[in-house]
């Protein structure tokens, strides 16, 4: 039986330890990814990201480049889907987030028509609310795609999404939950390609659930992002999109207009200039397949390209 004094000492030590650790956590270290919620001081940029690794990586690249130029940066990564972080952008919880031109344009303008990079970018700029703006777009693209296994592609002789039309009613489609209602998701596939799938299975945003479901046959076709290294790793087949349901998706920084200044634009535009699809794909592979730290991969990219 422990002595009473020892127990009390243990409890006091435990409380002290907890207080110490708690104060570590709530300190306002601007570069800590568990940032505090005190309103960021003027000049601080809060960088957010969506809840998938590529976007978090892009956010780290933006954040790294900005701090290299002396801007105070706070990171709030892995927030959620667009429907969650756009409100956060609007209410000032975040100031900057990496985005993709096509889907963003459609988010603000349901009737967006353009499919080429320049046209989409122009439509996007016109559709944005007054408080937000986008900087230069990058050549790097990451598009949504409908992916099937090699076996399925061979069995039904599938090359494009249109080829799914006759057999869709026997197939299960998988995708992120938001695909059920998004114009680029299930409704769009119906409208543009006349696809009526047997069922739609909500999974995740091109993550392990989707990859696993396709591999194990729980879904016949799934939504993956074109830069996803699992496509190559598993021999999946990306179906062509001749009708351009998934318009150009160039990476672009979405930022609150009032936060833009020359330093920030220069830094971010420089990144957009240096980034292309192949490079982005390679970086994503390092994070997802090689399990490297996104912050480290970002730093390496910046140093290699003289941006930080």
């Amino acid at each position: 039986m422990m002595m009473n004094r020892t127990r009390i000492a243990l409890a006091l030590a435990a409380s002290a330890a907890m207080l110490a650790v708690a104060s570590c956590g709530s300190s306002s270290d601007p570069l800590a990814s568990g940032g505090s919620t005190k309103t960021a001081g003027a000049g601080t940029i809060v960088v957010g990201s969506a809840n998938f690794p590529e976007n978090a990586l892009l956010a780290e690249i933006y954040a790294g480049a900005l701090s290299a130029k002396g801007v105070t940066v706070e990171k709030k990564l892995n927030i959620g889907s667009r429907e969650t972080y756009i409100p956060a952008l609007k209410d000032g919880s975040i100031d900057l987030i990496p985005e993709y031109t096509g889907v963003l344009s459609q988010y603000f303008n349901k009737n967006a028509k353009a499919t080429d990079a320049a046209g989409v970018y122009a439509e996007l700029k016109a559709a944005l609310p007054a408080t937000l703006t986008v900087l230069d777009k990058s050549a790097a693209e990451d598009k949504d795609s409908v992916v099937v296994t090699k076996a399925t592609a061979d069995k039904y002789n599938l090359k494009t999404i249109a080829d799914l039309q006759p057999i869709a009613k026997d197939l299960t489609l998988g995708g992120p939950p938001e695909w059920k209602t998004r114009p680029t998701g299930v409704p769009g596939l119906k409208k543009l390609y006349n696809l009526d799938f047997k069922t739609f299975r909500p999974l995740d945003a091109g993550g392990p659930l989707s990859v696993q479901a396709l591999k194990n046959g729980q879904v016949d076709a799934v939504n993956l992002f074109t830069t996803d290294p699992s496509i190559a790793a598993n021999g999946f087949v990306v179906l062509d999109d001749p009708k351009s349901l998934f318009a150009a998706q160039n990476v672009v920084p979405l930022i609150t207009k009032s936060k833009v200044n020359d330093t920030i634009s220069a830094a971010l535009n420089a990144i957009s200039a240096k980034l292309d699809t192949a490079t982005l794909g390679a970086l994503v592979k390092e994070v997802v397949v090689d399990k490297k730290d996104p912050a480290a991969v970002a730093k390496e990219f910046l140093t290699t390209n003289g941006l930080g």
Partner: protein
Amino acid sequence: MTWLRGHFVDVLSLAGQHIYLAGVPLVLGLLIALPLGWLACRYKVLYPFLIIGTGLLYTIPSLALFIMLPLLLGTHVLDPTNVLIAMTIYTVALLVRTVADGLGAVPDEVNQSATAMGYKRGRRFVSVELPLAVPVISAGLRVAAVSNVSIVSVASLIGVPQLGSLFTDGFNRAFLDPIIVGVVACVLLALLFDVTILGVTRLATPWQRAGEASS
């Protein structure tokens, strides 16, 4: 584990956030549950309503509460305060019954003796009933602490950073290391809370130790 060595500071920082989000509600929840529990105990007719009402609160899935609070309270979407308030609600839901039962377990004779000695209602509550109810309340607090540590991790699904962020990050990259570290950290954290509450309880109940020493 090389991942842990490279990210130790990050994990500590997330743990700190976790302690804040799980611990502060324990204190706030207790402060709110005390008067409510006292009401349930004193006015027997209120007991079923308060118990069922708070029991219902506990069944609301945490994710739903985290999402709805910004809309109900008008707070910012990513504000950890949403999580804090939700956790306080859950703590109150767990503790009201415990406080009511703890106060109810104080023997009538003790209350009567106190009154006979001249203790007025308020002083009797603070000096006699509450201290005697401490063991029961402390047991409830320990359950609430463990429950809180687990529920707070769900907040990573709405982008609030704490140890649960290790789960979502690891899952998105199909990377087991951060998830394992996160789970172990949560269990250790729960243990830490448990030991602390036990220690404070022993400090607050010297008569129990006196009993042990003399036997």
